[in-house]
């Protein structure tokens, strides 16, 4: 078995905070402590294998950047060991690392030399770097005239150009536009395929779920969760938006009960639902009905169904409720996301005990397979998630032969016509 790319063992980092610069001198001279200590990391332990893409999530100040800096050997840990096997390339601070007075092209040179490239190596890669950054038109202008997005692009392009064994990225991607982000993510995939390791910090949980095979959730300097990205994100959101609520279904009708049982039976063996929220509104039950109004969890591709969920108000009054229903594939690709705001449906103000039902009449134009439904109830401006039940409901789609490899059912009419060929 090959050595892990990164081993972090019991790493702690305590910063000394001096109020004034003179305090440092007095402390050195007199030996009397004149600083406060701040613990940024507390006995963090994990190891990352080659070929992993690991996302680090956590609140601001949780120690994410400190951790990356320690791995990149920019900071010394106060305790613990870090072992890194391979060449590191790191983007630790957005848009810096380059001299603002120099042009983009000169910055590529200096950056490359800093990363240990030879002049001729850089010359050979220069065109690729510029092409990747898509900054051809600006490359001979001073770096300081670049927007932060452009600076991030150039930094990223240089950092990945050396084909590092380990790439460390601290939030630099969040400023790029969507297209560039996708390109970077593809680059991560390429790295992973070639056996390199990517470690990055981001606040975009979607990105973590989309590309990481693992996520580490840091809370107040300690590892709160280390494992599958979906679970890490769910736990992070739970801590961020509210405390876990027992799933309770008051006022459940016998029919719904029965349907729930049927769904339960069909569910994959492990419990897939992840739930978080403040609990001011709870999504209590849901279902899928066929055209005749009978509950089902097996659909026929192309037919019409009604998807619904009920939200229950648990506090005196909620004025700004939004409810969304989303459908994902087994791998987490969002196929559909519909919410009341997008559809210009204003939900009625809710009083304690009120229940509102949201229904979505859909043409089940999906290919055969398993699908998961996510329900969410949140406040109008999304500051608060009242209840979010990710992958709460599972249903399958059956289809006529011919759609086996299709994710969606485009309802095609398949035909073939021979075109006239000139034989002259």
């Amino acid at each position: 078995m090959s050595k892990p790319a990164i081993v972090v063992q019991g790493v702690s980092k305590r910063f000394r905070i001096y109020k004034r610069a003179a305090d440092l001198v007095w402390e050195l001279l007199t030996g009397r402590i004149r600083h406060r200590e701040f613990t940024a990391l507390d006995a963090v332990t994990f190891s990352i294998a080659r070929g992993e893409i690991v996302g680090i999530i956590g609140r601001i100040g949780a120690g994410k950047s400190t951790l990356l800096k320690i791995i990149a050997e920019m900071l010394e840990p106060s305790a613990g060991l870090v072992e890194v096997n391979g060449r590191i390339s790191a983007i630790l601070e957005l848009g810096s690392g380059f001299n603002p007075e120099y042009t983009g092209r000169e910055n590529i040179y200096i950056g490359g030399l800093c990363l240990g490239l030879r002049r001729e190596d850089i010359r050979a890669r220069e065109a690729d770097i510029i092409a990747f950054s898509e900054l051809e038109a600006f490359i001979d202008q001073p770096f300081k005239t670049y927007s932060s997005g452009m600076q991030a692009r150039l930094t990223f392009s240089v950092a990945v150009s050396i084909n590092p064994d380990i790439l460390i990225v601290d939030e630099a991607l969040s400023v790029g536009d969507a297209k560039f982000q996708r390109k970077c993510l593809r680059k991560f995939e390429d790295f992973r395929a070639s056996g390199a390791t990517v470690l990055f910090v981001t606040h975009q949980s979607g990105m973590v779920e989309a590309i990481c095979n693992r996520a580490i959730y840091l809370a107040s300097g300690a590892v709160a969760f280390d494992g599958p990205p979906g679970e890490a994100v769910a736990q992070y959101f739970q801590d961020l938006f509210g405390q876990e609520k027992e799933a309770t279904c008051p006022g459940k009708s016998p029919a719904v009960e029965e349907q729930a049982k049927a769904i339960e039976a069909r569910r994959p063996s492990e419990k897939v639902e992840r739930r978080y929220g403040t609990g001011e509104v709870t999504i209590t039950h849901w279902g899928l009905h066929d055209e005749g109004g009978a509950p089902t969890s097996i659909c026929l591709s192309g037919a019409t169904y009604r998807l619904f969920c009920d939200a229950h108000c648990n506090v005196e009054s909620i004025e700004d409720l939004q409810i969304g229903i989303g459908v994902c594939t087994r791998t987490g690709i969002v196929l559909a996301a519909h919410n009341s705001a997008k559809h210009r449906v204003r939900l009625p103000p809710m009083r304690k005990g009120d229940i509102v039902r949201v229904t979505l009449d859909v043409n089940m134009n999906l290919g055969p397979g398993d699908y998961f439904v996510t329900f969410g109830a949140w406040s109008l401006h999304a500051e608060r998630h009242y209840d979010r039940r990710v992958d709460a409901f599972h249903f399958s789609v059956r289809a006529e032969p011919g759609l086996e490899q299709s994710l969606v059912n485009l309802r095609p009419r398949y035909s073939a016509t021979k075109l006239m060929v000139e034989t002259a």
Partner: protein
Amino acid sequence: MQQILSPSANLRALNLILQTLTQYRELLWEMTRREILDRQAGLAFGAFWVIGQPLLMMLVYVFVFSFVFTVRLGVGDNGFGYVAFLLAGLVPWLAFQEAVGRASTCIIDNKSLVKQLVFPVEVLPLKLALSTLLVLGVGLLFPMVLTVLNGTAKPLLWLLLPLPVFSYLLLTAGFCYVIAAAGVFLRDIRNIIQLLLTIGLFAHPVLYVPGMLSPWLERAFQLSPFAHLIWLFRDVVLGEISHPASWLIAPAAGLLSLSIGYRMFRGLRHMFGEVL
């Protein structure tokens, strides 16, 4: 003390410096070049200030000491003798002053580099020392030309010039390392260094004609490695080896200064990230 002077630790440090030099020679070259060219970037007469400012300083000293105070080396000195003598010591001192004066802020000035990439910070003080070689080289031409005009030149001795220059580089780089590292933590270092450099000019045998000072003071000069370096330059430029011991002391002091400075820098380097 024993630990500081430990031969094995110092040899290891020198070896590490050699490795850094070979690994990052292109980066070092590029940064040195840019240090010289860009320092005045954006100024109307950029290129002029790089060489012009130290040369103007030299002119001021020459004017004051040989025309205002009319200092002469001895009977029969028409003034050229003292000027050559003065410049041979003053030029290395001004170059040293230039490098060391900027060393205190060289890490902070390159904050973005130091914080961003996996950047070899060790090259920053080195590039300062290297970039002053230009001023040193151009400046030394003046006393050499003067000795030729004066008919006292011994061009064969000039072949020895690489040794003082090399010693200069070692000594200056060592000081730059120490001051650069200290400057990160205490920004007052910059002012302290400026003060010490001003005093230093008078505490070294730069301006004084031999025999002008009391003997104990002349002996006290022996304590400063830079005094030996000045004597080396003087011996070569003026064409008379009058300080044979210094030819051993200066390079040795240079090696020691570099390795101690480098070790101190390495020891503190990991803390830079916390302060910047």
